[in-house]
């Protein structure tokens, strides 16, 4: 077929039953001009080496399953065109995560960080149905909407030098999500979330490398969310010094 080329894929492999540490396997395959990196991995698994393990699902940059490091950069592989690369493409699991097998990372630690920011709407007293719906103006929606576009692909954790250096750090996506709820006009949980934000490994551990926002495939700005959360926490903290907070 026209436009077919050969490319060499250097893929990280790790079998927990046999390998002491991750190693690489090399596959040379013919690729189609419109393929994404994920298409090549699927081709290798289907036609060359069925033992290769990788995660993927939707193939349309919505599910957030197929994040991997391609030539050292965290990428959503279903969105990452092979035509952007040369003859050799290195595919490795996301950095900063323990590896379960080949390209599959352990995401349980990430999920725990997510839970820690209480990413749900908290209200002191649930409104009765007859009191009507919670209304929100377009401006109120704009305050947090972009932070709700995260698909939990974890590329930002792979890119973050602070996650690497300070493992306890909540991390970009979790803070952006917590900030999303703090900025939601329907929510009343700021005080609880800010306690987590101000704890060790919270927002102040971030040193604003901004790499999380650079690699985000959905153009969410997690680094902006973290800095905004810092500023709002400083204000919240200073207010707390002057005004003693009542019972929750």
């Amino acid at each position, binding site marked *: 077929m026209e436009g077919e080329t050969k490319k060499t894929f250097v893929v990280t492999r790790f079998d927990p039953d046999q390998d002491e540490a991750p190693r690489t396997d090399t596959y040379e395959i013919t690729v189609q001009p419109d393929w994404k990196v994920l298409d090549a991995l699927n081709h290798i698994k289907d036609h060359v080496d069925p033992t290769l393990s990788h995660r993927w699902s939707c193939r349309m940059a919505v599910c957030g399953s197929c994040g991997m490091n391609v030539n050292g950069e965290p990428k959503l592989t279903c969105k990452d065109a092979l035509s952007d690369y040369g003859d050799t493409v290195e595919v490795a699991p996301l950095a900063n995560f323990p590896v379960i097998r080949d390209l599959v990372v352990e995401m349980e630690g990430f999920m725990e960080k997510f839970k820690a920011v209480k990413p749900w709407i908290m209200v002191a007293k649930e409104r009765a149905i007859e009191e009507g719906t919670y209304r929100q103006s377009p401006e109120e929606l704009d305050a947090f909407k972009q932070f709700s576009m995260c698909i939990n692909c974890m590329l930002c954790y792979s890119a973050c*030098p*602070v996650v690497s250096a*300070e493992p306890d750090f909540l991390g970009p996506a979790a803070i952006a999500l917590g900030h999303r709820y703090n900025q939601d006009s329907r929510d009343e949980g700021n005080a609880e979330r800010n306690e987590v934000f101000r*704890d*060790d490994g919270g927002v*102040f551990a971030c*040193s604003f490398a901004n790499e999380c926002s650079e690699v985000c495939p959905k153009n969410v700005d997690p680094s902006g969310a973290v800095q905004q959360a*810092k500023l709002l926490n*400083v204000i919240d*903290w200073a207010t707390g010094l002057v005004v003693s907070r009542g019972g929750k």
Partner: protein
Amino acid sequence: MLKLEPIIWLLFGAGMMVGGLLLPAIVLVLGIAGPLGFAPAEALSYERIHGLATNPIGRLVCLGAIALPVWGGAHHLRHVWIDFGGLKTDGLVGPVLYAVALVTSVAGAVAVFQL
């Protein structure tokens, strides 16, 4: 350290802002143009600079240029240290850097007040 993070971050942000605005001109004139003879010698004479520094606005500029940027610098350096694997020694390096910042700010306030 925990409860101090917000105040340190506030000083850090103010330090970057104030330092960014004030320090380049000071370093340029007193550190480069003066010593290389570009700036007129009489402009940098003791009496003239003393006069500028003891003016109320001059005192404020001196205080701002000493007491705030030092926090910006200390906090940045602490994080560079952590990024390069220094988390284990952060308990020592962080307080030392902030102590340098605190001592410099206090010394600056005293010096500017007494000038």
